[in-house]
């Protein structure tokens, strides 16, 4: 069975999707067969395939992993409408639900479908990289991101925490996240990746060392701001295939330059 690497963020939009795409390309280039898996329930944009729809992010992550999207990459998700959600199972819309209805009537089947799909991927690939959304503390408390919670509980998957530093408050968001987790849950977090840093790393380093002391986890690297990458835009502005390829290469290089990937590798073995 393939290994599973979970990626969660300090908040929604912290950059887990982009980090997952970067990891997909990096591990593919390193010679592994890799599949992305969308565990994040809420989707803003989706993308049509012959089997139906999947989330926009998973479409790009599949490209980064050099594979054709299949229904298993994103077996269930909710597309937000004005006051309700469209529930998609295996690429097809099955119901229009409120959050309450989803949690009470549709959650068990959703979990079953997600588990089956993830198992299928693990049988076919060396590594599955899970886009888990964020924030893990709030998700647990509110029982949101039920697929992510389920994977963490059942598989004890090693987890990377993506911490968004763009508008500041990164140290607090990491500190608060750890404060909300139980010891067993903290144990699965392998390390922290700081995302969207614009500035001089030398100014940040003393703070990162303090943070490592405070939460007893390593900061595995600091990524810059990749606003030019198509993952940052909506599908309407889909860049040409050549540009997308260049973007995945850029992300993979950035990951290799900035992040302690040998440590990530150790987490998986």
């Amino acid at each position, binding site marked *: 069975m393939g290994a599973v690497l979970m990626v969660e963020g300090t*908040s929604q939009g912290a950059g887990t999707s982009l980090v997952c795409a970067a990891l997909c390309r990096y591990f593919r280039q390193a010679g592994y067969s890799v599949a992305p898996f969308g565990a994040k329930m809420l989707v803003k944009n989706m993308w049509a395939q012959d089997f139906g729809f999947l989330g926009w992010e998973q479409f790009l992550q599949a490209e980064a992993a050099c594979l054709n999207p299949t229904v298993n990459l994103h077996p269930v998700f909710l597309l937000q409408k004005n006051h309700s959600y469209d529930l998609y199972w295996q690429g097809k819309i099955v119901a229009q639900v409120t959050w309450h209805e989803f949690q009470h009537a549709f959650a068990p089947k959703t979990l079953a479908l997600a588990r089956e799909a993830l198992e299928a991927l693990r049988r076919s690939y060396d590594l599955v990289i899970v886009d888990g959304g964020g924030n893990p503390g709030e998700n647990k408390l509110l029982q*949101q991101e039920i697929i992510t919670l389920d994977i963490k509980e059942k598989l004890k998957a090693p987890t990377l925490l993506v911490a968004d530093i763009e508008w*500041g408050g990164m*140290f607090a968001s990491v500190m608060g996240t750890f404060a909300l987790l139980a010891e067993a849950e903290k144990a699965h977090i392998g390390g922290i990746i700081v995302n969207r840093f614009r500035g001089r790393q030398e100014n940040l380093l003393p703070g990162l060392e303090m943070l490592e002391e405070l939460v007893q986890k390593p900061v595995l690297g600091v990524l810059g701001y990749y606003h030019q990458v198509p993952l940052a835009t909506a599908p309407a502005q889909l860049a040409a295939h050549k540009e997308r390829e260049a973007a995945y290469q850029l992300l993979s290089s950035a990951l290799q330059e900035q992040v302690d990937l040998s440590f990530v590798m150790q987490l998986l073995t």
Partner: protein
Amino acid sequence: MERFPKKQAAVIMIQGTASHVGKSMIATAFCRIFTRHGYRTAPFKSWNMSVNTYLTADGGEIGVGQGQQAEAARIKATVEMNPLLIKPVAPGQVQVIVRGRPYKSVDTAVYAKEKQHDFYLQVIAESLARLCWEYEIVVIEGAGSPAEINLQEQDVANMQTAHLAKAPVLLVGDFSRNGALAGTLGTYLLLPPKDRALLGGFLFNKFDGEEAKLQLLAKVLTAETKLPVLGAIPYLKDLTLAEEDVAKEKALRGEEVAEKKADSGRQYDLLADAVEKALEMPQIYHLMGLAGPRKESGPWVQS
């Protein structure tokens, strides 16, 4: 040097878990709310980094936020309301503006390392003292997050200003991105005890209306910090105030200016109505050492 001003005005400070959580907007609303309640109110932001500036009547340059907040408070903006303005002028270069006047231009790396801390604190203390003499309430806005552990000594804008003013602090978290609890709790945990002692409570901004979610997060936050959540402000998309453009405004004819002013006056009232409704105002007055409104409260804008 009068390091600790003799306090005349009541003060309240708005800090945030990060930039862009809505501190400025909330401080603007507070200025209008207290003004409507019959208090002579002034805004204050000790240190500001911004390219958007506002020209005061005497030709000084301050952050656009304080200019708007002064408008919301129905007073003329003065340079004391934002005595330190750091304005990026070119890549890697900032202009330091002290009390509205250019003080110097320096390399950002130089600015980050220079030791002018005492001078800056003195400027802040003097400006604050003046506002506290002139007004009955001073609404203070912080900058960024007060818990940047790599910058805690340099950060004059947040807790150092709060200590100078002896201001109770409300910490604002962004509810919309599933990180408000981690952000507020983490900020609390990273603050040293003397700073924590100034915290009066939390506010959530960009609240999506999910009451059950709010109750659960507030319960955990209060249990962990022993501090109350004093309100959740909904998304106020329609109430975004026009970016103040001084040059454009000068080009307008007199009646157009008057029209624009009247319109932004209504915007401030709408904003104040929405924020006042969302907050526990009696508790906020209590933190400030005041009994409550001097006049009957709104809503000022009838829908």
